[in-house]
């Protein structure tokens, strides 16, 4: 079959690391080609080379049979290569049309021809079944729609080859389903797609072939229909992986955390969390499921003390903590694995040992009379590093910045678990991690549950919620849509609830 892109024997070195080692990738015309690999395996480097952001040290790129040198993204665009980034690059107070034509505005004399552009966008939108209103403002449309605007941006620029970078991370299951449909209609119109993802289920659903990269090397390219998810995962990680979280029946005890009629204001003064109530018992994992931006962040901030509680009660082991500050809540037994490990969870320019004592540096034995006790800190940190398998070149004194995402997260998880909290709030604990690290962190969370602690799991990954939680509370625009027992529900039901459709409605 005709290959529209061939990346041949690509090699790219960064100081101290070979990011791509003799990588060969062929994209056939009209296929969805999945690029699968753990974090740091070299997927992004490879795609950055294709998009002209990096130059390869060796190897060549052949587009439509002609060897080319892609020196910058503009050249990539001219070759018909377009990319939908994981984080959308849209101007929020511009309309769909304005965003799409940005940078190549069609002129009508000295004025921008918005009308003509909108018409063309409308046609494209209909042709591919995207259903986008060219006059809508970005801030008024859903995340799923915004992604379609990104797709339209590429189509408007006549892209033939579309690269999707982790496109489903921000979507509901239903929106994911829609996206898959869109991809198929793109194929029908003769486009070719490279799909970067670590979700095996999606590869199975939409991709024709899959190239697996591990540590910069191609492990193999397989026909998706001839393989299984387990096989692909094994290729990716290099060993057998268990997908299912091994856990027994939960043994819920007394109420550890009770939230009653909680109201929290968002940054723009809107009610981000509306009269929210739930109970969390010892020995259980309660999942909070919802699409990104539906009030989870504000809920967590209100629980941990990072954001003011407007009204309502948060009681931790029977004591109302709604009026306490962050430190007092921590001392009352609340631990928090934050959503963004680099923004909140770690001081990246501090060493691991300095990060390990972030919340407890004022306590004995880590400080005495206002002076840090470095030996105690070192011993504590070494113990945690060992216990939680945090890998770094220099051990305790390595800067947090130098650790891989998985090891950063393990350090945070270890630190928080070691505080022996009453309630552990874990927000997106495995975001962006590879399968091996996910497996490890999940195991640790279940251990906490089995040890009789209460775990609140807030995640955007529905699979994670369903795998780990004993019960699930679904949130939509700040309101509790419903509560289900995990063993009595399925992805479809929770997915609908995430979209705001109440159970049984």
């Amino acid at each position, binding site marked *: 079959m005709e290959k529209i892109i061939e990346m041949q024997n690509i090699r790219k070195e960064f100081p101290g690391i070979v990011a791509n080692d003799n990588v060969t990738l062929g994209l056939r015309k009209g296929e969805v080609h999945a690029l699968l690999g753990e974090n740091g395996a070299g997927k992004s480097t490879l795609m950055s080379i294709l998009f002209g952001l990096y130059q390869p040290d060796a190897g060549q790129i052949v587009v439509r049979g002609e060897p080319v040198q892609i020196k910058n993204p503009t050249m990539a665009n001219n070759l018909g290569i377009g990319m939908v980034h994981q984080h959308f690059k849209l101007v929020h107070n511009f309309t769909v049309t304005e965003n799409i034509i940005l940078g190549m505005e069609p002129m009508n004399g000295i004025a921008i021809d918005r009308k003509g552009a909108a018409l063309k966008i409308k046609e494209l939108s209909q042709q591919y079944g995207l259903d986008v209103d060219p006059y809508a403002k970005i801030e008024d449309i859903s995340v799923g729609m915004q992604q379609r605007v990104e797709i339209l941006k590429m189509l408007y620029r006549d892209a033939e080859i579309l690269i999707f970078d982790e496109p489903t991370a921000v979507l509901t299951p239903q929106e994911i389903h829609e996206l898959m449909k869109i991809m198929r209609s793109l194929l029908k119109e003769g486009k070719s797609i490279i799909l970067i993802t670590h979700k095996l289920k999606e590869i199975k659903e939409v991709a024709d072939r899959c190239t697996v990269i591990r540590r910069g090397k191609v492990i193999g390219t397989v026909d998706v229909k001839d393989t299984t998810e387990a096989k692909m995962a094994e290729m990716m990680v290099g060993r057998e992986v268990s997908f299912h979280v091994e856990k027994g029946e939960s043994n819920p005890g007394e109420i550890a955390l009770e939230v009653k009629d909680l109201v929290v204001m968002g940054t723009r003064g809107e009610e981000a969390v509306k009269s929210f109530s739930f109970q969390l018992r010892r020995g259980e994992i309660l999942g909070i499921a919802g699409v990104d931006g539906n009030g989870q962040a504000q809920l967590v901030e209100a629980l941990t003390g990072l954001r003011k509680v407007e009204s309502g009660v948060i009681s931790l082991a029977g004591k109302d903590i709604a009026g306490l500050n962050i430190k007092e809540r921590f001392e009352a037994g609340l631990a928090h694995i934050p959503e963004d490990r680099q*923004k909140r*969870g770690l001081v990246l320019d501090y060493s691991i040992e300095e990060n390990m004592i972030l919340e407890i540096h004022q306590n004995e034995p880590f400080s005495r009379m206002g002076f840090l006790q470095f030996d105690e800190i070192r011993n504590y940190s070494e113990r945690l590093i060992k216990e939680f398998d945090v890998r770094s070149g220099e051990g305790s004194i390595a800067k947090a910045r130098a650790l891989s995402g998985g090891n950063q997260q393990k350090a945070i998880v270890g630190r928080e678990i070691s505080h022996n909290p009453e309630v552990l709030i874990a927000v997106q604990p495995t975001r962006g991690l590879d399968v091996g690290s996910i497996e490890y962190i999940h195991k640790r969370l279940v251990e906490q549950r089995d040890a009789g602690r209460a775990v609140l799991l807030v995640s955007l990954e529905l699979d994670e919620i369903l795998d780990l939680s004993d019960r699930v509370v679904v949130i939509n625009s700040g309101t509790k849509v419903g509560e289900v027992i995990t063993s009595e529900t399925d992805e479809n039901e929770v997915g609908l609830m995430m979209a705001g459709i109440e159970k049984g409605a």
Partner: protein
Amino acid sequence: MKRVSTFKIRIPHQLQIALMAIAFGMLIAAVLIVITGNNPFSAYWFLFRGGLMSIKRIGNTLAGATTLILTGLSVAFAFRTGLFNIGAAGQMLFGGFVATALGLTLNLPKAILLPVMMLGAMLGGAFWGFIPGLLKAKFNVHEVVATIMMNFIALWIAYYGIQDTILKDPNQETQSARLPVEASLQVDWLRDITGNSFLNLGLIIAIIFVVIIAIIINKTVLGYQLKAAGYNRFAAEYAGMKVNRNIILSMAIAGALAGLAGFTFYAGFSNHVEIGKLPIQGFDGIAVALLGGSTPVGALFAALFFGILQTGKGFMQSMTGVPPEVGDLIIGFILYGAACQILFERILKYFKRGRNA
């Protein structure tokens, strides 16, 4: 197990960068010296001789560096906690003004008067740093704007506070009365061993505070918290540290250090306050902190280096005809060099890789 503190790791690398910045500054200035028709080698020879050739000149170099050590320390301390203190000049002037007012009005023996003045200078400076800190913590007013405004407020308070009061020198239009011997940091024994230089007790104060601040930054809970807020405010907040309190505290400490600088300058170097003028050392403190990699010890050495340039530039002029402003130009280019840290880091990396290959 031997402990390697992060502090010790920083220095060699920072030193390399600083030396490259200095080389860069001197190189560009050399080009300018050539353009003015002079020989850069002899210019630099006389510049450094001017700063170091006699015990008296060394004394003056140290006396000039004293104030810079403290303003540099002030800026560096704030910077380590994520704050940009542009207001060292105002804090220094206000602290110096308070010390001078105390020195001119109180009638106490030297051993009591000097500590009182020192405390007054620190409190005055601390107050001048506290206000921008408070504005930043409570209303998110950027400290750069607030400290610049505080500079002007200090300028005019000192102006009117001296202009029509008993503090003014009746025979001079633009300065306060001279401080009496009891209120001066200048002491006979230091003058005697340095051939009548301006060297005074301020240097000892400055060195003591370099040590104190280094200990605070590297060894204490307070330093740990302040640095955490400087590196990542969100993580500090997450960990339950009182970030706003720390901002205010950090600005107040930075202000106190600048106030001390004012004490060493107005009660040690000049012995009077010139009115209608912000002390340039307050702004030079930014350069000192930058060249010193924002570490206390780095600020000490950077201040000594700038002290040599300050003292030597007059000698350079008289011996070669190179205008003394070239000394300031060198400082300016060194600053550019220090600001181009990334560039030098790349150059360093390039050479390291070249050696390995």
